[in-house]
């Protein structure tokens, strides 16, 4: 178990009470949350990309992340408990998604995907603005600091209690998606064609969108904004395992878990002060994005 305290390097949990405390009560829940959160974010990105038949979407593009951030920040300011923060994040995440969808239907400019992304940008901006207002009115000594750190994304205050509050939801959703993984493929088809194959396409899209959104808002509510995982990991998974969701979806979950665990470990062990996780994933994610898209010209993922 890697870390800087009590001294830099690996710690042996069987060597004394302090070590045991550090490893079991500080690092272990954090490690598990990173793994589950990474898997959830990568899964949600994968599902969104399939659903919109567009490899460039992720929950953040449709305002879900910003909505969840707004909801969580509002709850933190009002001094809500952990549960309230999560419910608020989920509620506003879903609200943002539905508003983006509704707004995209109202637009008259461009194709469906373009309208959806434009609507997502608009809703995302709206909730980001709302978040800024909350920051303005938040108490600078207590909740403002909480919100600011939380916005950068991080798992530093993970306890067993935080883990337990989101773990069941995430595990259930991840398992459901694993069970339905072949069917996720069918959601990428044209709606009329999917219907002609006996698929209740609108219902299934709504259900999987809901599951992916709830999983995303769960990790955002405890870990803040952890960007780029949902966009880049599914690409990587498709490169490695092929486009078929039967293999690429589990692959995406696994890679997402590994990516977030490694990022979190680097973030807290590299420097004496912690690098916020969201900053690190954005840095690595954006670099990977450039490499994947510029590296092989013309090859689509």
């Amino acid at each position, binding site marked *: 178990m890697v870390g800087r305290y009590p001294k830099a390097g690996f710690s042996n949990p069987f060597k004394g009470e302090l070590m045991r405390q550090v490893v079991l009560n500080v690092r272990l829940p954090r490690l598990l949350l990173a793994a589950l959160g990474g898997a959830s974010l990568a899964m949600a990105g994968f599902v969104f990309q*399939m659903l919109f*038949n*567009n*490899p460039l979407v992720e929950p953040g593009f449709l305002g879900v992340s910003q909505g969840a951030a707004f909801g969580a920040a509002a709850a933190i300011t009002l001094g809500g408990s952990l549960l309230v923060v999560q419910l608020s994040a989920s509620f506003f995440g879903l609200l943002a998604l539905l508003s983006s969808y509704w707004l995209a239907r109202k637009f008259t400019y461009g194709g469906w995907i373009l309208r959806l992304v434009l609507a997502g940008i608009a809703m995302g901006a709206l909730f980001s603005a709302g978040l800024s207002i909350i920051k303005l009115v938040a108490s600078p000594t207590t909740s403002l600091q909480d919100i600011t750190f939380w916005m950068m994304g991080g798992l530093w205050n993970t306890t067993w209690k935080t883990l337990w509050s989101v773990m069941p939801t995430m595990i259930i959703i991840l398992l459901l998606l694993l*069970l*339905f*993984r*072949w*069917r996720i*493929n*069918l959601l*990428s*088809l*044209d709606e*009329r*064609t999917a*219907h*002609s*194959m*006996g*698929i*209740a396409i609108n219902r299934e899209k709504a259900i999987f969108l809901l599951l992916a959104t709830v999983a995303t808002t769960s990790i955002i509510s405890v870990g803040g904004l952890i960007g780029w995982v949902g966009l880049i990991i599914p690409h990587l998974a*498709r490169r490695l395992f*092929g*486009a*078929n969701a*039967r293999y690429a979806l589990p692959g995406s979950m696994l890679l997402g878990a590994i990516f977030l665990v490694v990022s979190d470990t680097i973030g807290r062990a590299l420097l004496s002060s912690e690098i916020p996780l969201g900053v690190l994933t954005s840095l690595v994610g954006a670099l990977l994005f450039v490499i994947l898209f510029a590296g092989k010209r013309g090859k*689509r*993922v």
Partner: protein
Amino acid sequence: MKSAYELIDVTYTYPNAQKPAVENLTLKIEAGKTTALLGPNGAGKSTIMDLLLNWKQCERGTIKLFGESLTNYSRRSLGRVVSLVPQEELSRFSFTVLDYVLFGRSPYLHHLATPSTADIAIAKEALKMVALEALIERPVLALSGGEHQLVLLARALAQQPKVLLLDEPTSSLDPGNTAKVLNIMERLSNEGITLLFTTHDPTIAGECADNVAMLKESRLLISGPKKEVLTQQLLCELYGTPLETIQVGERLIVMRST
């Protein structure tokens, strides 16, 4: 004559539209034969396809499929009887050809199931039918336009349909690929599958259809054996310019009058 589809006084109007897209349509689609829905763009051909798939529901009238009202079919059971070859389809993900054809097995698969070896055998059989068995591992994004159309056809065949609906099956193909698709359609018809395709090209209708239903401005002009429908007078009325036909064996070739 046994009908596959039977449309009785069917009308459909799009939301917010002034005029119906399909108006008082009564039409029988003969089982085991090939029927062309012929008409210019905007005549209501695609809307009829949507209605036949139960993707849209008619506001008046009834549609029967093998004697049973279309509304009595569940989505899944309909998917096992009727399948669709869309005009074009764009996937952004590089599924392999085999993966893509296997999607056609979905009306037979339980929600949690993944395709079995039996499904894979059926998909491979469908690919053999369109002579693409050599390409099963190829990503669909790397296919030519003609190959892609054949993959869509194979996917519809993997549904093991009794009725195959084809939306403008040849409109984006070069003569070589058009001939391939028409040959496959002929073979499927010989196997007893009912084929129904839309086209705005009377030559394609005259080439491979047994029956033709001629549509103009949301209404049926006439339907029947192609020799009775593809006449100089009716073609002229439909397209507003003098056209005539010459017969070559079983085929009718449409050309402009000189």
